């Protein structure tokens, strides 16, 4: 029994000394506010030679309007806020970037852009070596594709941007639009909110995109002629199978074009803000 006592003593001591647990992986709150620790992009870029989006678009106006692409050889950079991404996959392989002067699309061959380009994040884009062009006359940054502009590889992109400030959604303000006349080419690539509009085909059953193709939906309001479409990807958009509301809505979207069609790209289902559930437009 003496032996047993000895054994149990050793057992108890050893079990006490030996703690069996994994490290606690708590987040240090300050860690991610330090720009040196931003874990995406190229942290060696510095803010210099900033060009405004408006000036950039003007500089390459011919390339954009002819839907071609041209390499940017000058050492110039954009500084702007992300206003739209693929959070619900309707914008796919692209994000919209906006500064005080306008907006532009960044076309990147990658899914899950929303994981590191959240709305409200401020970034720097080193344009030298990237291409600018028009996709159906829509200004965008990317790589050449079939004599026009297409997506740049995620590897190239990774070298050409730097996160300046983590996302702050208060920096994102959509332009309030009460009638179509308030929209112009200068608003392309920016976030807009169309006030008090309604969907033409909304019958309580129709969804945004019933098939796996892209679907264009029109607005009832006369000032938005058939040149204005709400465009949804049936294959990718997470809200594609949601029923379109019959009531009036405030519609927030990224304003783009494909040649002579003005396209409104809803970023996420919550961009459709129902004004009055009971008021049917039909």
């Amino acid at each position, binding site marked *: 029994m003496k032996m047993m006592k000895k054994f149990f003593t050793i057992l108890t001591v*050893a079990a006490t000394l030996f703690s*069996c647990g994994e490290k606690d992986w708590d987040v240090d709150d300050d860690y991610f506010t330090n720009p040196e620790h931003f874990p995406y992009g190229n942290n060696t870029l510095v803010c210099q030679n900033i060009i405004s989006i408006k000036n950039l678009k003007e500089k390459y106006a011919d390339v954009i309007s002819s839907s071609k692409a041209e390499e940017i050889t000058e050492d110039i950079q954009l500084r702007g806020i992300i206003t739209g991404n693929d959070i619900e996959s309707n914008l796919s392989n692209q994000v919209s970037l906006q500064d005080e002067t306008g907006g532009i699309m960044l076309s990147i061959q990658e899914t899950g852009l929303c994981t590191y380009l*959240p709305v409200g994040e401020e970034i720097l884009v080193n344009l030298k070596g990237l291409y600018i062009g028009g996709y159906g006359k829509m200004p965008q940054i990317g790589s050449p594709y079939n004599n026009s502009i297409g997506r740049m590889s995620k590897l190239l992109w990774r070298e050409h941007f730097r996160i300046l400030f983590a996302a702050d*959604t208060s920096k994102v303000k959509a332009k309030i639009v009460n009638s179509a006349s308030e929209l112009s080419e200068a608003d392309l690539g920016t976030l807009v909110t169309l006030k008090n509009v309604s969907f033409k085909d909304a019958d309580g059953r129709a969804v945004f995109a019933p098939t796996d193709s892209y679907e264009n939906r029109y607005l009832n309001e006369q000032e938005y002629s058939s040149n204005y479409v709400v465009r949804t990807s049936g294959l990718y958009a*997470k809200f594609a199978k949601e029923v379109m509301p019959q009531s009036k809505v405030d519609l927030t979207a990224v304003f783009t074009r494909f040649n002579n069609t003005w396209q409104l790209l809803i970023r996420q289902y919550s961009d459709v803000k129902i004004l009055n559930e009971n008021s049917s437009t039909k």
Partner: protein
Amino acid sequence: MRKKILILSAALFTNQLLKAQETDTLNPFGGADGAVRLDESSFTFSESQLGEDDSDSRQSTVLSSSSNVFSSNAGMKFSPSNYRYRALDNKYNEVYINGILMNDAERGYFRFSQIGGLNNITRNSDDALPFESNGFCSPGLAGSVNYDIRPSKIAQGHKISASLANRTYTGRLMYTYGSGIGKNGWSFAGNLTCRYASTEGFKNVEGAFYNSISYYIGAEKILNSSNTVSVCTFGNPTMRGSRGASTDEAYFLAGSNNYNPYLGYFMGEVRNSRVVKDYAPTTIVTWETTPDENTKISTSAFIVLSKYSNTKLSYNNSTNPAPDYYSKLPSGFFNAYNRDDSGHRTEADLQNWNTAYDYWTSSVNNRYINFDALYYSNLSANLSGADAFYYMPEIHTDRITGGVSTNVKHSLGINSAINYGFSLSRNKIKHYQTMYDLLGAENFHNVNSFALGDYPSYAIQVQYDYRYPNEEVKEGDVFGFDYNIFSDILSGWAVYTLDQGAVHYYATARASYTDMFREGKMQNGFDPNNSYGHSRKAYFGDGGGKIGATVNLGKGHALDLGTGYEWKTPTANSAFLSPEVNNNFVTGLKCENIFSGQLSYAYSGSKVNANLTGYYAKIGNNSKWTCFYDDNSHSFSYVSMTGIEKEYFGAELGIRVKVLSNLELLALGTISDAKYVSDCNAIYMMSNSATYSSDVVASKGMREDGTPLSIASLGISYNVKGWFIELTGNCYDRIYLSFSPLARYKNSVTNRELIDPAGEFHAPDQARGEGGFMLDGSIGKNIRLKKGSLYVGLLAANILNNTNICTGGYEQNRTDRSYNETSNTTSDKAYVFSRNPKKYYAWGVNGMLNLVYKF
């Protein structure tokens, strides 16, 4: 006594057995089978290879035999290659403790990590090869073993050992005590083992930490001359990091076949994304009685409460964060395998290849999981109220098993004996997933994100549990799936032996009844009426038998012939179509039918012992269940394969030559085949649609994977002046990798290029791993002290540091071509999945230094 002598002489290899018993106590490296097998350090050596993961594919067979030179050495010597006896699934290898079958009721096999660290307790074993009579079972197709862990069987005295290693753990402390049988009839025994490795420690598994305590406590009382009762309890609480397989490209870029893609960096510190927690406390009460001199009855009752969980990294509305994910590798941008694929060999593709190459090789941070990035993304998701992009679920498998088992050994006179027994066990296996770590995110909901997009957010189909729609998931909460499997098993067996002249006959029989059902704990939106609550019950009856004879031809020569046929109940883990979703059983589920036979020649002389064995087995109606992410469908795919037919055949040779009294040579070799001889049926369900599809898998010609089918080995052992030296060279070859069913679906549109104009389907060749040569050695010395003895030993495996030996792996379940529904065409992907299987490689040079003090 006379009976014992007769049995021993009738059994083939008396000589060896006695020698083994002698050398066990005298010479831990003496070279006799039993000695090497039972030696402290040898056992430790392979311990880390055994069953650490909750899947049978990476577990070596633990098999031994006192009667066969090949079988007694193969399991231990070949464990660095993850050798499985005859390439059979581990469910055919039965493990008993105190006469109770401990193989898992759901998957059919025993996980050796449950007794990890208890080497000194499991030394007293009774082994049975597939065609050997024994006292505890009708042996399994890949053999059976019974560990007798009662305290009276534990060596008397104290034993303390300390070890340093660069294996799965870097340090180990072990203390064992056995009281022996006291005057009052009591015996006690105990064991405590601690094993440890840090994340950064120097070892052969990159970043895999290891924290484990093993304990054993036993008490036994001799009540009177014919009755003893014992209680034993043991367990092995372990927490450790895992290692993942990767592609040759990733290993090349990382500059090491030791690269572990499960690792990452978080705020500058190494973090393993796969944390395993494992604890299976077991208690066994055994009563042994001898009602008369010819009968011994042993009855045990047991309970096992096992908890096993494994974390992993998952993603939602984002891309796979695995660092070796194909789209992050250079060959994800440029098709390096097909010169004609001009679409993926442009200037820009080549430039991307180079950029990816530079990225991967420029910094260690770039080839591991970037936890900082995952946290950053999740923190930004919090701002918009979105669900976590990345999270770590913990997959749990908890088992509660209890039962009783009785074994009877009955002598029918001097020439014959009958052993028989029966057992009953009840099993409840809980499968569920909890949120282990939200990685900084604040929001997550219990919805099926794969189904969103195909269904609106308000549809029932997107709900994992419709009873609580859109339920918020916090850390520790159950989500995704939650179900129990129940199974009752009643079984009986008998072994009859008869000795007539020079012939030892034996016949074995077994039969069992099994029932099983599922209990869903969530009402899955895909099948709301058939997911919550009990499924119907499935019943199976099986049985079979073996007969055989051993003929002593005199002068040490003997022949052994055996054959058997049996039906075996499918394991519960292959019985359900999509157990994570609903209650559906696999249709057409049948008992396996197994024919096996073996012819063996043995020679046992004073200097030479040799065995040559030829065997054949055919398994029909085999079934298999698997689950993987199918990128063609952007969803998980649950696949049941049924109607599998496999053949196993081969030859095994073992020769041991005593060149000098202190010098021995041991040669071992096997050449075998283990292959699917038919195509099989597949039924699969996608996690984004819940519809079942069927197909035919072109499995004919596929081989069993993860074990070498050809092995040659030569060893030499020498002892002089108390020193024991051993050196063994092993050659491994013909190692196959687990084949992908998806790449072999005969009717899949993405595989239609594999059909020739005559309509013949040409299945891609099964991926293989490289074999190679491995040199292992050991040196040790026993030192007698004034009080007790000290053993010092060094073991070194893979001394030549051959890190190019593949020990298994799997083909990626992805196809090389993508399908465009609109144009009904297929096209090459840039990344050629069929040329990039995931592989495991053998550890480089690794060793263990042991100090053992006995007093």
